[in-house]
Protein backbone atom coordinates (compact mmCIF):
# COMPACT_ATOMS: atom_id res chain seq x y z
CA UNK A 1 0.00 0.00 0.00
CA UNK A 2 2.76 2.37 0.94
CA UNK A 3 4.85 1.24 -1.96
CA UNK A 4 2.15 2.17 -4.40
CA UNK A 5 2.59 5.83 -3.50
CA UNK A 6 6.21 5.77 -4.51
CA UNK A 7 7.07 6.11 -8.16
CA UNK A 8 8.52 2.99 -9.78
CA UNK A 9 12.26 2.85 -9.48
CA UNK A 10 12.90 2.93 -13.21
CA UNK A 11 10.90 6.11 -13.56
CA UNK A 12 12.74 7.85 -10.73
CA UNK A 13 16.17 7.00 -12.00
CA UNK A 14 15.40 8.25 -15.46
CA UNK A 15 14.16 11.48 -13.96
CA UNK A 16 17.17 11.92 -11.76
CA UNK A 17 19.58 11.45 -14.64
CA UNK A 18 17.87 14.27 -16.49
CA UNK A 19 17.72 16.63 -13.51
CA UNK A 20 21.17 16.32 -12.10
CA UNK A 21 21.92 18.41 -9.04
CA UNK A 22 23.90 21.03 -10.87
CA UNK A 23 21.04 21.66 -13.29
CA UNK A 24 19.02 23.49 -10.72
CA UNK A 25 17.64 26.82 -11.92
CA UNK A 26 20.60 29.21 -12.38
CA UNK A 27 23.04 26.36 -12.86
CA UNK A 28 21.28 25.08 -15.96
CA UNK A 29 23.69 24.69 -18.87
CA UNK A 30 22.95 27.12 -21.70
CA UNK A 31 23.00 25.77 -25.22
CA UNK A 32 25.82 27.03 -27.40
CA UNK A 33 23.24 28.39 -29.85
CA UNK A 34 22.17 30.93 -27.26
CA UNK A 35 25.71 31.51 -26.02
CA UNK A 36 27.02 32.61 -29.42
CA UNK A 37 23.67 33.71 -30.81
CA UNK A 38 23.22 36.59 -28.40
CA UNK A 39 26.34 38.62 -29.26
CA UNK A 40 25.90 37.90 -32.97
CA UNK A 41 22.28 39.07 -32.96
CA UNK A 42 23.21 42.14 -30.91
CA UNK A 43 25.71 43.18 -33.57
CA UNK A 44 23.23 42.42 -36.36
CA UNK A 45 20.57 44.43 -34.51
CA UNK A 46 23.00 47.31 -34.11
CA UNK A 47 23.74 47.22 -37.86
CA UNK A 48 20.04 47.18 -38.65
CA UNK A 49 19.13 50.00 -36.29
CA UNK A 50 21.86 52.23 -37.76
CA UNK A 51 21.13 51.41 -41.39
CA UNK A 52 17.40 52.17 -40.82
CA UNK A 53 18.57 55.54 -39.42
CA UNK A 54 16.85 54.88 -36.09
CA UNK A 55 20.18 55.79 -34.54
CA UNK A 56 22.38 58.51 -35.96
CA UNK A 57 25.37 56.90 -37.68
CA UNK A 58 27.42 60.05 -37.04
CA UNK A 59 27.45 59.19 -33.35
CA UNK A 60 27.14 55.44 -33.53
CA UNK A 61 28.73 54.07 -36.70
CA UNK A 62 27.45 50.75 -38.02
CA UNK A 63 29.52 47.66 -37.17
CA UNK A 64 30.26 47.12 -40.87
CA UNK A 65 31.75 50.63 -41.11
CA UNK A 66 33.78 50.12 -37.96
CA UNK A 67 35.07 46.89 -39.39
CA UNK A 68 36.08 48.67 -42.62
CA UNK A 69 37.92 51.30 -40.59
CA UNK A 70 39.60 48.52 -38.65
CA UNK A 71 40.86 46.95 -41.88
CA UNK A 72 42.19 50.30 -43.07
CA UNK A 73 43.94 50.89 -39.75
CA UNK A 74 45.51 47.44 -39.89
CA UNK A 75 46.69 47.72 -43.52
CA UNK A 76 48.09 51.23 -43.09
CA UNK A 77 50.16 49.97 -40.16
CA UNK A 78 48.76 52.69 -37.91
CA UNK A 79 47.04 50.22 -35.59
CA UNK A 80 50.18 48.19 -35.14
CA UNK A 81 52.27 51.31 -34.51
CA UNK A 82 49.81 52.53 -31.85
CA UNK A 83 49.75 49.13 -30.19
CA UNK A 84 53.50 48.92 -30.25
CA UNK A 85 54.20 52.23 -28.58
CA UNK A 86 51.47 51.71 -25.96
CA UNK A 87 52.71 48.22 -25.20
CA UNK A 88 56.28 49.50 -24.95
CA UNK A 89 55.18 52.10 -22.37
CA UNK A 90 53.08 49.60 -20.43
CA UNK A 91 55.71 46.86 -20.32
CA UNK A 92 58.62 49.15 -19.48
CA UNK A 93 56.64 50.87 -16.74
CA UNK A 94 55.34 47.52 -15.54
CA UNK A 95 58.79 45.99 -15.16
CA UNK A 96 60.26 49.14 -13.62
CA UNK A 97 57.37 49.20 -11.14
CA UNK A 98 56.90 45.51 -10.38
CA UNK A 99 60.55 44.70 -9.66
CA UNK A 100 61.10 47.32 -6.94
CA UNK A 101 57.54 46.66 -5.74
CA UNK A 102 58.45 43.03 -5.16
CA UNK A 103 61.67 43.94 -3.36
CA UNK A 104 60.03 46.54 -1.13
CA UNK A 105 57.12 44.18 -0.42
CA UNK A 106 59.45 41.37 0.64
CA UNK A 107 61.47 43.77 2.80
CA UNK A 108 58.28 44.85 4.54
CA UNK A 109 57.21 41.25 4.92
CA UNK A 110 60.46 39.86 6.28
CA UNK A 111 62.12 42.68 8.22
CA UNK A 112 60.09 44.22 11.06
CA UNK A 113 62.23 47.36 11.05
CA UNK A 114 61.53 47.93 7.36
CA UNK A 115 57.86 47.36 8.03
CA UNK A 116 57.84 50.13 10.62
CA UNK A 117 59.85 52.37 8.32
CA UNK A 118 58.21 51.89 4.92
CA UNK A 119 54.65 50.83 5.59
CA UNK A 120 53.32 54.21 6.83
CA UNK A 121 54.82 56.00 3.84
CA UNK A 122 53.36 53.41 1.51
CA UNK A 123 49.92 53.54 3.07
CA UNK A 124 49.92 57.34 2.97
CA UNK A 125 50.79 57.61 -0.71
CA UNK A 126 48.73 54.69 -1.98
CA UNK A 127 45.27 56.32 -1.78
CA UNK A 128 46.32 59.16 -4.11
CA UNK A 129 44.94 58.25 -7.54
CA UNK A 130 48.11 57.89 -9.58
CA UNK A 131 46.56 59.79 -12.46
CA UNK A 132 46.55 62.91 -10.30
CA UNK A 133 50.33 62.79 -10.33
CA UNK A 134 50.52 63.13 -14.12
CA UNK A 135 50.65 66.96 -14.19
CA UNK A 136 53.45 66.86 -11.63
CA UNK A 137 55.33 64.25 -13.64
CA UNK A 138 54.93 66.28 -16.84
CA UNK A 139 56.28 69.40 -15.13
CA UNK A 140 59.26 67.50 -13.75
CA UNK A 141 60.02 65.20 -16.68
CA UNK A 142 58.54 66.92 -19.66
CA UNK A 143 56.03 65.53 -22.11
CA UNK A 144 58.23 62.69 -23.42
CA UNK A 145 58.21 59.00 -22.67
CA UNK A 146 59.63 59.38 -19.16
CA UNK A 147 56.52 60.91 -17.61
CA UNK A 148 54.22 58.24 -19.02
CA UNK A 149 56.47 55.35 -18.07
CA UNK A 150 56.93 56.75 -14.57
CA UNK A 151 53.18 57.06 -14.15
CA UNK A 152 52.71 53.40 -15.04
CA UNK A 153 55.62 52.47 -12.84
CA UNK A 154 53.93 54.13 -9.86
CA UNK A 155 50.62 52.53 -10.70
CA UNK A 156 52.15 49.06 -10.73
CA UNK A 157 54.54 49.53 -7.81
CA UNK A 158 51.90 49.92 -5.08
CA UNK A 159 49.69 46.89 -5.66
CA UNK A 160 52.72 44.66 -6.18
CA UNK A 161 54.50 45.96 -3.05
CA UNK A 162 51.42 45.72 -0.86
CA UNK A 163 50.41 42.29 -2.08
CA UNK A 164 53.85 40.75 -1.81
CA UNK A 165 54.13 42.11 1.74
CA UNK A 166 50.75 40.73 2.76
CA UNK A 167 51.55 37.45 1.06
CA UNK A 168 54.48 37.04 3.42
CA UNK A 169 52.72 38.46 6.48
CA UNK A 170 49.63 36.31 6.05
CA UNK A 171 51.48 33.02 5.76
CA UNK A 172 49.59 30.39 7.70
CA UNK A 173 51.16 30.00 11.18
CA UNK A 174 50.96 26.23 10.76
CA UNK A 175 53.38 26.33 7.80
CA UNK A 176 55.85 28.40 9.80
CA UNK A 177 55.60 25.89 12.66
CA UNK A 178 56.26 22.99 10.31
CA UNK A 179 59.34 24.69 8.86
CA UNK A 180 60.67 25.39 12.37
CA UNK A 181 59.87 21.90 13.61
CA UNK A 182 61.70 20.33 10.68
CA UNK A 183 64.74 22.49 11.29
CA UNK A 184 64.57 24.79 8.27
CA UNK A 185 67.26 27.48 8.21
CA UNK A 186 66.27 31.08 7.52
CA UNK A 187 67.28 30.69 3.88
CA UNK A 188 65.48 27.34 3.56
CA UNK A 189 62.37 28.84 5.12
CA UNK A 190 62.31 31.70 2.63
CA UNK A 191 62.92 29.38 -0.30
CA UNK A 192 60.61 26.49 0.58
CA UNK A 193 57.81 28.22 2.50
CA UNK A 194 57.72 32.00 2.37
CA UNK A 195 58.16 32.53 -1.37
CA UNK A 196 55.91 29.74 -2.67
CA UNK A 197 53.39 30.45 0.08
CA UNK A 198 53.06 34.10 -0.87
CA UNK A 199 53.04 33.58 -4.65
CA UNK A 200 49.24 33.45 -5.05
CA UNK A 201 48.80 36.80 -3.26
CA UNK A 202 51.71 38.24 -5.21
CA UNK A 203 50.13 37.15 -8.50
CA UNK A 204 46.89 38.85 -7.52
CA UNK A 205 48.93 42.03 -6.99
CA UNK A 206 50.49 41.70 -10.42
CA UNK A 207 47.04 41.30 -11.98
CA UNK A 208 45.78 44.45 -10.26
CA UNK A 209 48.96 46.24 -11.31
CA UNK A 210 48.51 45.30 -14.94
CA UNK A 211 44.87 46.35 -14.98
CA UNK A 212 45.90 49.71 -13.50
CA UNK A 213 48.63 50.03 -16.13
CA UNK A 214 46.10 49.69 -18.95
CA UNK A 215 43.93 52.34 -17.34
CA UNK A 216 46.79 54.75 -16.79
CA UNK A 217 48.36 54.45 -20.22
CA UNK A 218 45.13 55.43 -21.96
CA UNK A 219 44.68 58.46 -19.73
CA UNK A 220 48.31 59.49 -19.98
CA UNK A 221 48.31 59.26 -23.76
CA UNK A 222 45.16 61.33 -24.01
CA UNK A 223 46.83 64.20 -22.22
CA UNK A 224 50.40 64.30 -23.40
CA UNK A 225 51.27 62.14 -26.38
CA UNK A 226 51.23 61.99 -30.15
CA UNK A 227 51.01 58.22 -30.48
CA UNK A 228 49.45 55.23 -28.79
CA UNK A 229 45.93 53.89 -28.26
CA UNK A 230 44.94 56.60 -25.79
CA UNK A 231 46.15 59.29 -28.16
CA UNK A 232 44.12 57.66 -30.95
CA UNK A 233 40.89 57.96 -28.96
CA UNK A 234 41.56 61.61 -28.19
CA UNK A 235 42.48 62.24 -31.82
CA UNK A 236 39.23 60.64 -32.95
CA UNK A 237 37.37 62.91 -30.55
CA UNK A 238 39.18 66.01 -31.80
CA UNK A 239 38.45 65.37 -35.46
CA UNK A 240 35.09 63.72 -34.76
CA UNK A 241 36.03 60.40 -36.34
CA UNK A 242 33.73 58.01 -34.53
CA UNK A 243 34.86 55.02 -36.55
CA UNK A 244 38.43 55.53 -35.46
CA UNK A 245 37.23 55.85 -31.89
CA UNK A 246 35.42 52.52 -32.03
CA UNK A 247 38.43 50.89 -33.66
CA UNK A 248 40.45 52.09 -30.66
CA UNK A 249 37.90 50.58 -28.30
CA UNK A 250 38.27 47.24 -30.05
CA UNK A 251 42.06 47.50 -29.73
CA UNK A 252 41.80 48.15 -26.01
CA UNK A 253 39.42 45.26 -25.50
CA UNK A 254 41.80 43.03 -27.43
CA UNK A 255 44.76 44.22 -25.41
CA UNK A 256 42.89 43.63 -22.14
CA UNK A 257 41.75 40.14 -23.10
CA UNK A 258 45.18 39.16 -24.44
CA UNK A 259 46.99 40.36 -21.32
CA UNK A 260 44.52 38.58 -19.03
CA UNK A 261 45.07 35.37 -20.97
CA UNK A 262 48.85 35.70 -20.85
CA UNK A 263 48.89 36.44 -17.11
CA UNK A 264 46.52 33.55 -16.45
CA UNK A 265 48.72 31.21 -18.47
CA UNK A 266 51.85 32.30 -16.60
CA UNK A 267 50.03 31.97 -13.29
CA UNK A 268 49.13 28.37 -14.10
CA UNK A 269 52.74 27.59 -14.91
CA UNK A 270 54.09 29.42 -11.88
CA UNK A 271 51.53 28.16 -9.36
CA UNK A 272 50.61 24.66 -10.51
CA UNK A 273 49.20 23.81 -7.08
CA UNK A 274 46.48 26.45 -7.29
CA UNK A 275 43.19 25.01 -8.44
Amino acid at each position, binding site marked *: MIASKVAPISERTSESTVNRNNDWYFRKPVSSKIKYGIPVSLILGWELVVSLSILDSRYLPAPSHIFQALLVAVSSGQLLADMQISLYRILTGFILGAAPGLVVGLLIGFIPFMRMFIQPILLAIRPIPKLALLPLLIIVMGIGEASKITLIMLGVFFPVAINSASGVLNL*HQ*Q*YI*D*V*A*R*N*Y*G*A*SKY*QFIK*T*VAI*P*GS*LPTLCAGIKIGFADALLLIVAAEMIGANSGIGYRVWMAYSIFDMRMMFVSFIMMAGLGIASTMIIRFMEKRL*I*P*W*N*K
Partner: protein
Amino acid sequence: MQVEKIRIEQLRKQFVKKNKMVEAFHSISLQIKDGEFVSIVGPSGCGKTTLLRVIAGLELPTSGTMHIQHHDSNQPLNAMVFQEHSIFPWMTVRENIAYGLTMRKVPPSIKKSIVDHYLLKINMVNFAESYPHQLSGGMKQRVSVARAFANDPEILLMDEPFTALDEQNRLLIQQELLKIWEENQKTVVFITHSIEEAILLSDRIIMMSAHPGTLIAEYEIPFPRPRKIEEIRSSTFYKNMFNEIWMQLKEEVEKSRSMEGMLPI
Protein backbone atom coordinates in the same frame (compact mmCIF):
# COMPACT_ATOMS: atom_id res chain seq x y z
CA MET B 1 63.31 -0.67 26.97
CA GLN B 2 62.96 1.11 30.26
CA VAL B 3 65.30 3.99 29.48
CA GLU B 4 63.85 7.36 30.29
CA LYS B 5 63.32 9.56 27.23
CA ILE B 6 61.48 12.62 28.41
CA ARG B 7 61.49 13.97 31.96
CA ILE B 8 59.32 16.94 32.81
CA GLU B 9 59.24 18.53 36.24
CA GLN B 10 56.88 21.17 37.56
CA LEU B 11 56.35 22.60 34.09
CA ARG B 12 54.20 25.68 33.79
CA LYS B 13 53.25 27.86 30.86
CA GLN B 14 51.68 31.27 31.06
CA PHE B 15 51.05 33.73 28.32
CA VAL B 16 49.67 37.19 27.97
CA LYS B 17 46.31 37.55 26.33
CA LYS B 18 44.59 40.92 26.14
CA ASN B 19 46.87 42.31 28.85
CA LYS B 20 46.05 39.46 31.20
CA MET B 21 48.21 36.62 32.36
CA VAL B 22 46.62 33.35 31.39
CA GLU B 23 47.82 30.00 32.60
CA ALA B 24 47.87 27.31 29.94
CA PHE B 25 49.03 24.57 32.31
CA HIS B 26 50.87 24.22 35.61
CA SER B 27 52.58 21.69 37.90
CA ILE B 28 53.12 19.15 35.19
CA SER B 29 55.55 16.40 36.08
CA LEU B 30 55.89 13.48 33.76
CA GLN B 31 58.31 10.81 32.66
CA ILE B 32 58.08 9.08 29.35
CA LYS B 33 60.14 6.00 28.58
CA ASP B 34 62.04 5.39 25.39
CA GLY B 35 59.75 3.72 22.86
CA GLU B 36 56.61 4.41 24.83
CA PHE B 37 53.35 5.48 23.19
CA VAL B 38 51.72 8.00 25.50
CA SER B 39 48.42 9.72 24.84
CA ILE B 40 47.26 12.88 26.54
CA VAL B 41 43.51 13.42 26.81
CA GLY B 42 41.62 16.28 28.35
CA PRO B 43 38.75 18.70 27.74
CA SER B 44 39.30 21.29 25.03
CA GLY B 45 41.15 24.36 26.21
CA CYS B 46 43.05 22.42 28.87
CA GLY B 47 46.44 23.32 27.42
CA LYS B 48 47.34 19.93 25.97
CA THR B 49 48.33 21.35 22.60
CA THR B 50 50.46 24.00 24.30
CA LEU B 51 52.16 21.27 26.32
CA LEU B 52 52.98 19.43 23.12
CA ARG B 53 54.32 22.61 21.53
CA VAL B 54 56.57 23.14 24.53
CA ILE B 55 57.86 19.57 24.23
CA ALA B 56 58.41 20.21 20.50
CA GLY B 57 60.47 23.29 21.30
CA LEU B 58 58.07 25.56 19.43
CA GLU B 59 57.34 27.40 22.67
CA LEU B 60 59.29 27.96 25.87
CA PRO B 61 57.89 27.01 29.26
CA THR B 62 57.43 29.80 31.83
CA SER B 63 58.99 27.73 34.58
CA GLY B 64 59.94 24.16 35.40
CA THR B 65 62.40 21.86 33.74
CA MET B 66 62.22 19.59 30.78
CA HIS B 67 64.89 17.16 29.84
CA ILE B 68 64.84 15.10 26.67
CA GLN B 69 67.45 12.42 26.01
CA HIS B 70 68.92 12.95 22.57
CA HIS B 71 70.73 9.73 21.71
CA ASP B 72 72.10 10.48 18.28
CA SER B 73 72.73 14.10 17.45
CA ASN B 74 72.74 13.25 13.74
CA GLN B 75 69.06 12.32 13.99
CA PRO B 76 66.39 14.96 14.53
CA LEU B 77 65.03 14.95 18.05
CA ASN B 78 61.36 15.28 17.23
CA ALA B 79 58.89 15.61 14.40
CA MET B 80 55.37 16.87 14.81
CA VAL B 81 52.16 15.82 13.08
CA PHE B 82 49.77 18.76 13.15
CA GLN B 83 45.98 18.81 13.24
CA GLU B 84 45.31 19.61 9.61
CA HIS B 85 46.35 21.93 6.79
CA SER B 86 49.98 21.30 7.61
CA ILE B 87 51.26 19.74 4.43
CA PHE B 88 52.49 22.36 1.98
CA PRO B 89 50.02 22.93 -0.87
CA TRP B 90 52.85 24.00 -3.19
CA MET B 91 54.72 20.72 -2.88
CA THR B 92 53.85 17.37 -4.36
CA VAL B 93 53.21 14.42 -2.05
CA ARG B 94 56.76 13.25 -2.63
CA GLU B 95 58.27 16.65 -1.83
CA ASN B 96 56.11 16.93 1.27
CA ILE B 97 57.17 13.56 2.65
CA ALA B 98 60.80 14.42 1.88
CA TYR B 99 60.61 17.83 3.59
CA GLY B 100 62.55 16.98 6.74
CA LEU B 101 65.14 15.07 4.73
CA THR B 102 65.55 18.00 2.34
CA MET B 103 66.06 20.38 5.23
CA ARG B 104 68.77 18.04 6.57
CA LYS B 105 70.37 17.86 3.09
CA VAL B 106 70.11 14.07 2.88
CA PRO B 107 71.59 12.87 -0.45
CA PRO B 108 68.90 12.53 -3.16
CA SER B 109 69.32 8.78 -3.68
CA ILE B 110 68.84 7.98 0.00
CA LYS B 111 66.00 10.49 0.20
CA LYS B 112 64.25 8.84 -2.72
CA SER B 113 64.44 5.36 -1.24
CA ILE B 114 63.13 6.54 2.13
CA VAL B 115 60.24 8.42 0.53
CA ASP B 116 59.42 5.45 -1.71
CA HIS B 117 59.31 3.23 1.36
CA TYR B 118 56.76 5.46 3.09
CA LEU B 119 54.71 6.04 -0.07
CA LEU B 120 54.26 2.29 -0.11
CA LYS B 121 53.46 2.18 3.61
CA ILE B 122 50.67 4.74 3.30
CA ASN B 123 49.38 3.23 0.05
CA MET B 124 49.97 6.35 -1.98
CA VAL B 125 52.55 5.32 -4.57
CA ASN B 126 50.22 6.47 -7.36
CA PHE B 127 49.84 9.90 -5.80
CA ALA B 128 53.55 10.65 -5.43
CA GLU B 129 53.43 13.54 -7.90
CA SER B 130 49.98 14.85 -6.92
CA TYR B 131 49.45 18.14 -5.17
CA PRO B 132 47.53 18.26 -1.86
CA HIS B 133 44.46 19.92 -3.40
CA GLN B 134 43.95 16.72 -5.38
CA LEU B 135 43.86 14.61 -2.20
CA SER B 136 41.14 13.79 0.32
CA GLY B 137 41.48 14.83 3.96
CA GLY B 138 42.50 11.32 4.98
CA MET B 139 45.21 11.18 2.34
CA LYS B 140 46.60 14.54 3.46
CA GLN B 141 46.95 13.29 7.02
CA ARG B 142 48.62 10.11 5.81
CA VAL B 143 51.17 12.30 4.03
CA SER B 144 51.63 14.31 7.20
CA VAL B 145 52.28 11.13 9.21
CA ALA B 146 54.66 9.82 6.55
CA ARG B 147 56.56 13.12 6.56
CA ALA B 148 57.13 12.79 10.29
CA PHE B 149 58.22 9.14 10.14
CA ALA B 150 60.43 9.70 7.07
CA ASN B 151 62.46 12.26 8.99
CA ASP B 152 63.27 9.45 11.45
CA PRO B 153 63.05 11.50 14.65
CA GLU B 154 63.63 10.06 18.09
CA ILE B 155 60.27 11.35 19.28
CA LEU B 156 57.01 11.73 17.39
CA LEU B 157 54.61 14.40 18.55
CA MET B 158 51.07 14.20 17.28
CA ASP B 159 48.50 16.91 17.86
CA GLU B 160 45.02 15.47 17.27
CA PRO B 161 46.13 14.32 13.84
CA PHE B 162 42.97 12.40 12.96
CA THR B 163 40.31 14.60 14.54
CA ALA B 164 39.14 16.12 11.29
CA LEU B 165 38.69 12.77 9.54
CA ASP B 166 35.50 10.80 9.18
CA GLU B 167 35.22 7.64 11.25
CA GLN B 168 35.91 5.17 8.46
CA ASN B 169 39.08 6.90 7.42
CA ARG B 170 40.09 7.38 11.04
CA LEU B 171 39.88 3.65 11.76
CA LEU B 172 42.02 2.83 8.74
CA ILE B 173 44.64 5.46 9.43
CA GLN B 174 44.86 4.39 13.08
CA GLN B 175 45.57 0.85 11.97
CA GLU B 176 48.19 2.13 9.52
CA LEU B 177 49.80 4.20 12.24
CA LEU B 178 49.93 1.16 14.55
CA LYS B 179 51.57 -0.85 11.80
CA ILE B 180 54.24 1.74 11.05
CA TRP B 181 54.84 2.47 14.72
CA GLU B 182 55.10 -1.18 15.76
CA GLU B 183 57.91 -1.56 13.22
CA ASN B 184 60.25 0.98 14.75
CA GLN B 185 58.75 1.73 18.20
CA LYS B 186 59.56 5.38 18.48
CA THR B 187 58.60 7.39 21.52
CA VAL B 188 55.23 8.98 20.77
CA VAL B 189 53.32 11.72 22.55
CA PHE B 190 49.83 11.74 21.12
CA ILE B 191 47.22 14.40 21.85
CA THR B 192 43.63 13.41 21.31
CA HIS B 193 40.17 14.08 22.64
CA SER B 194 39.02 10.63 21.67
CA ILE B 195 39.20 8.13 24.53
CA GLU B 196 38.75 5.35 22.03
CA GLU B 197 41.72 6.44 19.98
CA ALA B 198 43.85 6.80 23.09
CA ILE B 199 43.07 3.25 24.27
CA LEU B 200 43.57 1.69 20.86
CA LEU B 201 46.95 3.25 20.24
CA SER B 202 48.77 3.89 23.48
CA ASP B 203 50.70 2.15 26.23
CA ARG B 204 49.68 4.80 28.72
CA ILE B 205 47.02 7.50 28.85
CA ILE B 206 47.51 10.69 30.79
CA MET B 207 44.53 12.85 31.63
CA MET B 208 44.62 16.59 32.03
CA SER B 209 42.17 18.63 34.07
CA ALA B 210 39.98 21.44 32.81
CA HIS B 211 41.65 24.83 32.36
CA PRO B 212 44.21 25.60 33.72
CA GLY B 213 45.44 22.16 32.89
CA THR B 214 47.39 19.84 35.08
CA LEU B 215 47.79 16.07 35.22
CA ILE B 216 45.07 14.30 37.16
CA ALA B 217 45.13 10.64 36.21
CA GLU B 218 47.11 7.94 34.46
CA TYR B 219 46.01 4.67 32.92
CA GLU B 220 48.21 1.81 31.75
CA ILE B 221 46.83 0.12 28.66
CA PRO B 222 47.96 -3.51 28.81
CA PHE B 223 46.83 -4.75 25.39
CA PRO B 224 49.63 -6.77 23.76
CA ARG B 225 51.15 -5.69 20.47
CA PRO B 226 50.82 -5.99 17.53
CA ARG B 227 47.30 -4.77 18.09
CA LYS B 228 44.22 -5.36 16.01
CA ILE B 229 41.77 -2.50 16.36
CA GLU B 230 38.68 -4.69 15.84
CA GLU B 231 39.76 -7.20 18.49
CA ILE B 232 40.46 -4.55 21.09
CA ARG B 233 37.21 -2.74 20.43
CA SER B 234 35.14 -5.86 20.98
CA SER B 235 36.81 -6.90 24.23
CA THR B 236 35.10 -6.36 27.59
CA PHE B 237 38.30 -4.99 29.04
CA TYR B 238 38.20 -2.20 26.46
CA LYS B 239 34.62 -1.31 27.37
CA ASN B 240 35.39 -1.17 31.08
CA MET B 241 38.48 0.88 30.43
CA PHE B 242 36.53 3.26 28.24
CA ASN B 243 33.89 3.76 30.92
CA GLU B 244 36.41 4.26 33.66
CA ILE B 245 38.23 6.93 31.70
CA TRP B 246 35.05 8.56 30.50
CA MET B 247 33.59 8.84 34.03
CA GLN B 248 36.62 10.84 35.08
CA LEU B 249 36.93 12.88 31.90
CA LYS B 250 33.24 13.72 32.05
CA GLU B 251 33.76 15.63 35.28
CA GLU B 252 36.49 17.69 33.70
CA VAL B 253 34.50 18.38 30.56
CA GLU B 254 31.57 19.53 32.70
CA LYS B 255 33.85 21.83 34.65
CA SER B 256 35.21 23.23 31.44
CA ARG B 257 31.68 23.71 30.10
CA SER B 258 30.64 25.62 33.18
CA MET B 259 33.58 27.95 32.62
CA GLU B 260 32.70 28.54 29.00
CA GLY B 261 32.82 32.17 28.06
CA MET B 262 35.42 32.72 30.76
CA LEU B 263 37.87 30.66 28.79
CA PRO B 264 40.66 32.70 27.30
CA ILE B 265 41.12 30.45 24.30
